[in-house]
């Protein structure tokens, strides 16, 4: 039991992202309202973004900017990678955020089209109307 607790405390970021992801997935599966489903979808995507952000983090590290950049003696000193957090996952997530915003935009546009056609956002009502067509 202490082992498990230790595992959870030390890797809490992974547990957190899994919980968030499952909340999103649950909303996508079980909610009846189309907008709520989209919110679930966005939580799902955000969980993965948080996961990526957390893997770049290091304890006692700072942002990856070398203070004495050009010239000076300090520039010739060896740069310790352990002193700086890993910026690459963060940069990747900028792109992933753009992708998720675009997806949400397209999905919202589709919801608008559905709403204009059926005057409702409840999925069961829409399915009922579709059957009557």
């Amino acid at each position, binding site marked *: 039991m202490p082992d498990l607790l230790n595992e959870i405390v030390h890797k809490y970021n992974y547990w957190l992202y899994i919980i968030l992801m499952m909340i999103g997935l649950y909303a996508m599966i079980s909610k009846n309202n189309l907008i709520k489903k989209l919110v679930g979808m966005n939580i799902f995507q955000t969980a993965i973004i948080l996961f990526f952000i957390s893997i770049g983090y290091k304890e006692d590290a700072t942002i990856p900017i070398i203070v004495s950049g050009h010239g000076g003696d300090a520039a010739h000193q060896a740069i310790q990678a352990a002193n700086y957090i890993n910026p690459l*996952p963060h940069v990747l997530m900028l792109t992933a955020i753009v992708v998720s915003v675009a997806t949400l935009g397209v999905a919202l546009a589709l919801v608008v089209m559905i709403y204009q056609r059926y005057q409702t956002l409840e999925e069961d009502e829409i399915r009922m109307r579709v059957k009557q067509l």
Partner: protein
Amino acid sequence: MNANYPALIVLSPLLAAFLVAALDWVDRRWCYPVALIGLGGAVYSSGHLFFQVMRSGTIAYQLGGWPPPMGIELRIDFLNVLLLILVSLVALVNMVASKKSIHQEMPIKEGTFCTIYLLFVTGLLGVLVTGDLFNLYVLLEITSLASYALLAMGNPDRAPLASLNYVYLGVIGASFYLLGVGYLYIMTGSLNMLDVASLLPQISGSTAVSVAFIFCLVGVWIKMGLFPLHTWLPNAYSYAPVAANRVIAPLMTKVMVYVMIRLMLTVFGFHYVFEQLDVQNWIVGLGSVAIIAGALMALAQTDLKKMLAYIIVCEIGYMVGGAWVGNVQGMVGAVLHIINDGLMTFALFLVLGNIVYVQGKTKISELDGIFASMPWTMAGFVLAGLSIIGVPPTCGFFSKWYLLLGGIQAGAWFFVIALVFSSLISAILVFRVVETAFFSSAQEVHGHHGGHAGHVAILQEAPITMLASLGIVGIGLIAVGIWSGSIVQQVILPFVQQGMS
């Protein structure tokens, strides 16, 4: 200039997309020709790349001059050069065929349609050329976003809802893939496919690597519509505008199969996938179930569009099963079937497009005696149908042959039975349509009673552009079949043998 074709093949449709979006405001008549030029540029570049690869092997192109582990690398080898030709040619031929259908189905949206269409093609070509795992994710999402939009432009009652369901599943699929890439990045610290491949053997016992592989695999499966994960596919494909359908249905799923094979052979490697994971029997079983389920569901359909959508579900099972039987024959069959199935389904959807354009109806029972009014289109249907069944001169036979050989060699009897069974079902599917189209019972009755004797004889064919496109693809079906021996020997086999050694 000569060395930049790997980048140009993606840039050409991308720049054309921007230009078309701008021209839509200025003069709508320019949109279509510019789109054609953009797609033509991609075809031209893919031809150059093909000869370059055949002459001097794999091309590694460093985007912006940054060397591989840091920068993005575009890699073109024997596998993706074939698909580049397929994708760019299908996209161009479909654009030629679509001129009239766009005008019929969405007259004021020509510019919008062309823009999204070009972005879709850009994404597909990008997925094919890239040698970077994260880059692949982004381009996959560009492709998917464009396809959501294109599919939603169809029937206003059903298409948006079907497309929204596709969005939900597509997002889950892409997110799973991204998670898998995240795990790989944690373990290796790299995103370049070859770099990851060189680092993986040292840590291949790790659970995190297996999780990464399974996440990537399931994500790609959702996107390709493998049987239990296919639920978004039939509705999304059958309510879409036919001009969009014709390019998305043949290409999207095939490119996803390509991504799966690329992950299996280039990134994770034969040794890891087949000897260490030991899941191939399950996945071949899954592929066989997909084949049988797809075939049976296709048989249950009364609408031609839905039937074709389920044929795609069935064909995906062929490729997944073939790729996973774990021998050279099966893998060659899977790669060859990507090409052949791309052409076959494209031909079938072109036929569908012609019928929709002229008749406006797709129920199989309503296609009574359609052969009399649309002989050329139905001739194309028969040819594509024979290829789906796997009759020798057409290309479908050869890939099925390799798949069967692979299945027999691996002792995957369930897969072999599924292949034979689905060929029989395809024969029923094709001849059911042919029977209604050729021998209309209603007309005979009318004819005998001297009633509407003349009304079936009116020739009412699709426009020449659509027929010419269908003709080109029909010739392609036979040409690929005849030359499949040299395609396999010179292009597919070198790649597969290198990947599976």
